[in-house]
């Protein structure tokens, strides 16, 4: 079935991945081959078969909703590329009025 280069570019936008033209070309070829391989699944009759999202399931475990202080917030902030006054700094997302 393959995949077109436009489709690859659309997916890369959804995945928030910037691709060079060369990468887009390579992925079009590679993903095309892999998707062709996936068409093997079409021959399996899955009517009335429930999907498995987890190999083993139990009831969702419940616990009390209590506050548990993490301890050292500085350690978390230390991993952020830019932080200021206990906050993580990101580029402006609202327009200047």
């Amino acid at each position, binding site marked *: 079935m393959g995949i077109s280069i436009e489709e690859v570019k659309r997916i890369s936008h959804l995945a928030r991945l910037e691709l060079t033209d060369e990468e887009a070309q390579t992925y079009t070829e590679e993903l095309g081959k892999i998707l062709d391989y*996936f068409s093997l699944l079409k021959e*399996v009759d899955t009517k009335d078969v429930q999907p498995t999202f987890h190999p083993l399931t139990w009831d969702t475990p419940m*616990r009390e909703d209590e506050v548990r202080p993490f301890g050292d917030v500085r350690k978390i902030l230390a*991993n952020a590329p830019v932080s200021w006054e206990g906050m993580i700094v990101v580029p402006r997302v609202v327009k200047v009025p």
Partner: protein
Amino acid sequence: MGSFDLNTLTIRKALYLLEKGEVSSVELTQACLERIRKVDEKVKAFLYVNEEWALEQARLADEKRKEGLGGKLLGIPLAIKDNILIKGHPTTCASKILHNYIAPYDATAILKLKEEGAVFLGKTNLDEFAMGSSTENSAFFPTKNPWDLEKVPGGSSGGSAVAVACRMGLGALGSDTGGSIRQPACFCGVVGMKPTYSMVSRFGLVAFASSLDQIGPFALNVEDTALLLEVISRHDPYDSTSAPKQFPALSQVLKENEGKKFRIGIPKEYFEHKLDSEVSKNFDEIVMLLKKLGHEVKEVSLPRTKYALAVYYIVAPAEAASNLARYDGVKYGLRVEGKSLAEMYKKSRAEGFGREVKRRIMLGTYALSAGYYEAFYLKASRVRTLIKQDFLKAFEEVDLLLTPVSPTPPFKLGEKISDPLQMYLSDIFTIPVNLAGLPGLSLPSGFTSDNLPLGVQVIGPHFKDDHVLSLAYQIEKELNLEAIPPIIKAL
């Protein structure tokens, strides 16, 4: 200094020497560090070694022992795959996007090891975010197979497998999503086990595919593997998929089951696949051995086997695409500035992720996207049910399954890196086990004519990890292999 031969030193033996006071943890740790200094520049198993930290932990373990305090692994030096968090130390996942990340907390499996007194030497190399079968996808450098430096060690936990094979640590932890513990264990001549899904907490394991990922041990023999698994398998309220169960003392059951006879199934579909002749010959020898030991061996059928690879390469990338959405240059890791937030995301991810990771994010995003979700992700998840049912049905007739670990012996560095499908095929016998959530163990079973390690895989029903280990223990005892790579034999 106490006397011991690092090349034949198991965890069990080391604990015995420690208890008798014939050796200290500092001496053991120093021996491992010295081995790392001598060998690691050739095999490149470690991304991070911290000698000062390791020796400090060892000193503490020695003090505890002097005070009469115990611990199932007190003073035992271990290596940890670099996608498992150890508080205060780097966790890179062998990715540029996490190149400077320092873990702010411990993974639960690490906490359990700490509680039992283990000593951490450092963090081992892997395919970036555990995506790969050769450790060539590491953003930093490939790891090499100690049996032949031109060959891959397998992956993704290649660094941990090599660390144990070279006796740079007495044991190691890895993670296994589609074979990432078992295949490198096989390629390096050590024991590696993926426990039943949910037995070991995934809290603090960097998520790749959450319904498949499982932490597990590497060791030189089955007994040590059982001991490591016994320590790390505990219920954990921090992982909602952690089994609310008590597990048996695995290291105790091996001796109890020494004479136990099992009904063992050989899945016929696994042999419809192209199999290397030496892998096949070795497998037949192990089957003969099982019969000689008095086990009942019979052919079983897992009819949906041929769909497993396709199901896996839809489900795993779909989960990965979701899990890896968190790497966006905001909270941690690499940030590449952009004019807008969206541009920052796109540039950071483009710069931070390697080829295979991007390929899988693309695949997974595609499989989950509007218009393709039903045809790909949902379809694959339905076929996954059938694959699981095949196993459950087989386990009505037999207690355990025996299969090869990989269709080929270790392959050359660079041989498969440019052909993703070929690379994916090297996990064809391990992937179905993850899809069904079963326990699987890779046991060294012989050598090729070129002296490369071969292995067999024992698969069991859910939570029959004790039986998997017990059969492996019996085979190991009977084979009595000496698996010491030439590179360290020469030292």
